[in-house]
């Protein structure tokens, strides 16, 4: 196949772009592709990832993923105004609040992309100290179970006391949220 741009060199770059729901294919040589800016020294896996997940999105935002009730009203972010339908087309959220407004629908997408919708990594140091303590408690509970299973009761008691301490710490700073 020849490059559709210069019709001279062999096409080695094959791209599929989805523009307004229309699938368009491009076959270019390295040179033309790089001149058109399609062929970048891309460290960022932009193309693959956007394609990957635009395939997962419900195109018009109305057809709900399995298990999610169809919306009766338009889903829209109050903060930035982006609708779920727009998000489906762009593939980007508008602001951090969108995550809350798009709720379950977005969560099920995240599960399909990542296999999980539950963050286990880093928590911000300054603003996330309470969250960090909660995570610590969770980890310690797991440890506690393990110690009990191993019949190391002395160790288990120590851990239990620590958990209590941490729990009081969280309650102290928080106006009963749970």
């Amino acid at each position, binding site marked *: 196949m020849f490059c559709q741009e210069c019709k001279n060199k062999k096409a080695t770059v094959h791209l599929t772009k989805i523009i307004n729901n229309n699938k368009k294919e491009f076959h270019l040589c390295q040179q033309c592709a790089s001149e058109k800016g399609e062929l970048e020294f891309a460290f960022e896996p932009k193309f693959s990832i956007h394609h990957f*997940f635009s395939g997962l999105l419900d195109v018009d935002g109305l057809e709900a993923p399995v298990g999610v009730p169809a919306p009766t009203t338009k889903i829209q972010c109050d903060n930035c105004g982006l609708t779920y339908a727009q998000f489906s087309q762009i593939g980007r959220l508008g602001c951090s609040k969108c995550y809350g407004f798009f709720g379950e629908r977005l969560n099920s997408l995240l599960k399909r992309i990542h296999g999980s919708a539950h*963050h286990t990594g880093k928590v911000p140091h300054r603003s996330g100290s309470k969250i960090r303590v909660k995570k610590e408690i969770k980890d310690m509970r797991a440890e506690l179970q393990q110690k009990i299973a191993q019949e190391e009761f002395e160790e288990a008691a120590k851990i239990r006391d620590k958990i209590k301490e941490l729990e009081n710490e969280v309650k102290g700073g928080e106006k009963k949220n749970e």
Partner: protein
Amino acid sequence: MNEGNFQMTRLSKWMEGAGPNSEIVLSSRIRLARNLKEIPFPYLASDDQREKIYSLVKGLVENNKETFENYEFYNLTELSQLDRQLCMEKHIISPQLVKDSNNSFMLLREDEAVNIMINEEDHIRIQCLYPGLQLENAWELADSLDDLLEERLDYAFDEELGYLTACPTNVGTGVRASLMMHLPGLVINKQINRILSALSQVGLIVRGLYGEGTEVVGNIVQISNQITLGQKEKEIIRNIHVVARQLIEQEEAARQALLNEGRERVADRAGRALGILSNARIIGSQEAMQLISDLRLGMDLGLIELDRKVLNQLLVVIRPAYLQKIQEKELDSYERDVCRATLIREMLEGKTH
């Protein structure tokens, strides 16, 4: 702010060619995506909002003069298209910033190993780029810079979903870890496709040097994590590290097999590459990349004496923006091929024995 004297033709740290396993791993990169609460993501933000994010980071940098002693802000809007493209060829910025750089800034460390991008796809992206296999070091540096920024900035963070990002593929840790690897042995013994497709089944993204949909050029592949949510940063890094170890082992075995089968053949291949590169008058980038790979293999196997730094530099200097930058004018494809050949000849002169 430094706009006028933009020294983009200098060496980046990753090109030094040092670092663990640098005969196979060219570079290690960690990128963290971070956003501020409530302000729309850059593509939806107003000019004022974009400006505000810049001034917040700027204030923070001014309050931490010691840490940021060797850093400089660049306003990407004020750089020429060519300079932006050059930054991309050096892996300092993403292709996105070349095209859309409205009120986008970068805070670049002198050795170009650290770049904090402002108003890219996300409000803030911290990138650490090291030579060789050093993902953990890169992560530790990015992590500490992240802590420093967070002391003053209110990040968009959700207890369940982690760091919130413009693209749902980055949410959670916001971490993208990437390795650039040179795998000529696995290309020659035709194992590469089998191995790479296996990697994509374990949640890694594998691409050729030029990104998705392109052939593997110059026997260089990029490997990065696909999943950012549900795994700890260290797990993500460890996974890639484990895979990299296996790839290194297989590549080393393939190289050893090549030597066992015929040392002269490998030496011949490298020698021919050197011959062409030292004498060609017109050369396309793809051919050059392949020959540089042959040369690198010969060097790694001790068949040809060469400076690794020169070969790493060659990977960048043969790219279009770099060529045009040193010529200080636009070049068509023929002119670039001529200029590329000249530059390669000059760089190899006196560097081989």
